[in-house]
């Protein structure tokens, strides 16, 4: 047996980046500035996840419809916002002008994607409410496939995206959001702060609409007992159309925010890339509960941020963030299949 030279053994076991030990990584991770930076990145990821999943959980919680076209609506939102921004923003447009143009684009996205959602609900989904859920799943999956292929054709036809990234749309971002900002010992991405703000506004907006408006009250009543709500004079069919349009509009807004993010961007695969985390978030939080979705997004966002930091700085496992998130999902499905705040039955019909 050949003796082994201890000095030749790879002490990182192929897992740690060269020149890094686990203890060094842990020490670096536990530094206050690192923890705060990771926390801010976690909040930004959570904000993105809550925006992606918010509309999905609204539609499922209130209508009992699992919308497999949700990611596609996010993709449409990203493209519509990108088109508006590319058309409106020129090289001479200042920072405030770009931000104002973005909020204009958000309004256009919300109206167009929300309007499209209402057409899908009235024209297709409404006919299937009395059928088993698999009919709605297959229908929305079919809508997703058709829309994705249509988007692919349009993108190729117009040469919109010569590479996988639409640089022109990414370039409409104001410099304030495209750079990092130093706050004391911290270096924070401007876009991360913007995403956090957008996530907070989205959550607050949905919550206020559902709990502080008369129409929100109709929606909550109709989702609990559609027949009784109808007998009280509420046009539940119209309420469901509004809910679907609202959910679709929120998905579109999420896409508009992602359009500026280099990691996501406006592209056709965005549909599938956002649908999966959206489902992970709503399953962890509990299908159909908005509070659960917010908590689920925070958990997934923080785990994603922590594991991404470890992947970038310490370990060589590129798949660490995905594995960590899906391990939580699997654990949740084993220990509490209905999720953190889930109920066994949702949907008003």
């Amino acid at each position, binding site marked *: 047996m050949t003796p082994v030279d201890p000095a030749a053994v790879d002490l990182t076991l192929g897992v740690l980046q060269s020149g890094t030990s686990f203890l060094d990584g842990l020490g670096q991770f536990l530094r206050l500035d690192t923890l705060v930076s990771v926390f801010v990145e976690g909040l930004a990821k959570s904000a993105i996840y809550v925006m992606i999943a918010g509309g999905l959980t609204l539609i499922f919680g209130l209508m009992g419809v699992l919308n497999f076209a949700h990611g596609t609506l996010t993709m449409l939102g990203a493209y519509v916002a990108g088109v508006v921004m590319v058309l409106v923003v020129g090289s001479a447009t200042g920072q405030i002008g770009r931000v104002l143009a973005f909020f204009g684009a958000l309004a256009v996205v919300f109206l167009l994607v929300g309007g499209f959602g209402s057409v899908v609900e009235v024209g297709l989904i409404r006919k299937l409410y009395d059928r088993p859920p698999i009919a709605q799943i297959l229908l929305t999956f079919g809508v997703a496939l058709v829309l994705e292929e249509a988007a692919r054709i349009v993108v190729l036809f117009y040469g919109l995206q010569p590479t996988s990234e639409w640089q022109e749309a990414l370039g409409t971002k104001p410099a304030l959001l495209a750079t990092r900002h130093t706050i004391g010992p911290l270096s924070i991405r401007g876009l991360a702060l913007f995403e956090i703000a957008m996530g907070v506004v989205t959550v607050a907006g949905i919550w206020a609409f559902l709990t502080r408006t008369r129409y929100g009250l109709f929606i909550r009543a109709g989702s*609990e007992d559609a027949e009784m709500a109808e*007998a*009280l004079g509420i046009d*539940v069919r119209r309420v469901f159309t509004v809910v679907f349009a609202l959910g679709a509009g929120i998905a579109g807004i999420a896409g508009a925010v992602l359009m500026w993010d280099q990691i996501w961007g406006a592209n056709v695969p965005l549909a599938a890339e956002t649908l999966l985390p959206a489902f992970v978030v709503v399953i962890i939080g509990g299908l159909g509960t908005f509070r659960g979705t917010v908590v689920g997004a925070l958990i997934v966002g923080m785990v994603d941020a922590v594991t991404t930091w470890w992947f970038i700085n310490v370990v060589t496992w590129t798949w660490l963030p995905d594995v960590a998130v899906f391990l939580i999902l699997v654990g949740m499905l084993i220990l509490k299949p209905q999720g953190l705040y889930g109920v066994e039955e949702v949907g008003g019909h």
Partner: protein
Amino acid sequence: MTLLEVDGVQTYYGESHILEGVSLEVDEGEVVALVGRNGVGKTTTLRTIMQLTPPREGSVSYRGEELVGLRTHEVADRGVGWIPEDRRIFSQLTVEENVRVAVPDGEDVDATVEFAFETFSELDSHRGRDAGTLSGGQQQMLAIARGLVGENDLLLVDEPSEGLAPQIVADVAQALADAATETTLLLVEQNLPLALDLADRFYVLDNGRVVDDGDASEVSADDERLRRYLSA
């Protein structure tokens, strides 16, 4: 004046024929009891009037207007309210939200809600609670309050005393008697003394057909005339 006229309605659940030509009338200001054994079609009659289970044949007219073909919320908009047998309060909404949701568009919502809690003062201290945490009697009171704030001219009340303790039944009966001073009631009730005490007239339903009717003052709960249709 005839407020509601049900004429020869035939109602099915799938292939099950439940109402086989039910006809009845309710005049404005009346309390009419609809009595009969379990499963003879009393609840289905109320559901048919509300168009929750529309009839395949026959007519339901309210103030002379045909209701068949309308959607349920359109029936409700015309002033027909429904208090279902299992109350069907929105358990995840608060007590106040349950009342608030029933106030019709165009009414002063806050004033109507305040009036409801003055009338049903026993609910006032529970306003902020989830309605699902109320006792059965409180839920029934809430269901009646919800029916009354709807500004309905006709209330269809299904088994209001079901599952309640005797003292609570007395409170519910009083609430219905008070309601009857403001609105017309079509009351489905297994508790015959209660039904006859409240009602001006009655219909007896058996196997999906009206088999007897008359003035409530003509009969008592133990009359053979009624017992043969009501005993199991």
